[in-house]
């Protein structure tokens, strides 16, 4: 009896979420959503760790505030703002199209979200660094 050919099984790879090969604009939104979500979760954890320094007395906290005012740290604030804007604006787009609103214009909505993210991030960067002396 001839043996049955065993197909090569599919490897389920989460990294496929970030594989942009051959993908189109809607997928970029999908990738941006995931990357910004991971970034924001990591930020939230870091934020809680930093806040815990409050329990270690004023000197520990003052030390952190001095670091937080450095230009390198402020640059990280801008990365945070980019993440919040990208995730939030794309989240609004996904909520709308999930309820069937504006589905034929989902690509334009994505572009608008990305343009607003860039514009507001630049405005935020200018506002933050204008305060630096």
């Amino acid at each position, binding site marked *: 009896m001839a043996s049955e050919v065993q*197909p090569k099984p599919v490897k389920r790879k989460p990294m496929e979420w970030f594989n942009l090969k*051959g993908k*189109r604009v*809607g997928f970029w939104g999908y990738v941006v959503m995931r990357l910004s979500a991971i970034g924001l979760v990591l930020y939230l954890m870091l934020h809680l760790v930093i806040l815990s320094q409050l329990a270690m007395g004023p000197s520990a906290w003052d030390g952190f505030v001095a670091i937080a005012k450095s230009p390198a740290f402020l640059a990280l604030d801008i990365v945070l703002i980019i993440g919040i804007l990208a995730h939030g604006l794309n989240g609004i787009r996904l909520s709308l199209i999930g*309820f069937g609103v504006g*589905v034929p214009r989902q690509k334009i909505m994505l572009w608008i979200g990305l343009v607003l993210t860039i514009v507001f991030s630049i405005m935020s960067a200018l506002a933050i660094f204008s305060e630096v002396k």
Partner: protein
Amino acid sequence: MKLNVKMYRYKPGTEPHYDTFPVEVPETGNVLDAIERAWADHDMSIMFRHACHHASCGSCGLLVNDQEKLPCVTPVKDYGEGATLKIDPMRNMPVITDIAVDASVIYQRMQLIGMPIIRNAETLRPDKRTILPEGLETFGRFENCLECGLCLSACPVMATDPQFLGPMALAAAERLLAEPRGVDVEHIYQLVDDEHGVWRCHSSFECTEACPYEVDPGAAIMRLKRKVAGRKIKRLLGG
């Protein structure tokens, strides 16, 4: 027109690799013609699935340069003289050999929905000659679905959730709920209102981009989400 076909090769028990075959096809030819030339002129052990050669059977779906295509209707001139066509099997389906996949993934999902829609009109998609009723700008037809599986291949969610119903079956469910024709819709709602159903879709719209017949499964899934959410809200309010 001279081209190179860079073909994914896999035989059970061996490591996958690529073989490149120089081929010559007419300028009016399609990618399937180039694959057939590679088979006929270089290596008759190349295994690939095809039948109708005119986008009617949906059996030849694969990846050309990492994008889901029906090679029987994808012109070679889109890639240009001397181009290399990288040919891979569809994603998210077990590979039997070379670019032939186990397509049962496609049909099992359609069977779950029941495949009740029978085409009885021949207006396949609107063009400039189509006379539409007043107020209707365009239309899409789920009945155009070839069941080629390209949407399942393109969907990033399928890459991680093997139980996901997938764009084709969800679009079929939406079509069925829009016009049940006596079918038990409760069963359909139970199937789609599930963690592996409509809520697993994360709206990348790769299915819509990949569909060779403009069925637009992405939009159908969005309508289905609204329908399922509306039904839940109505039930919560005692309706």
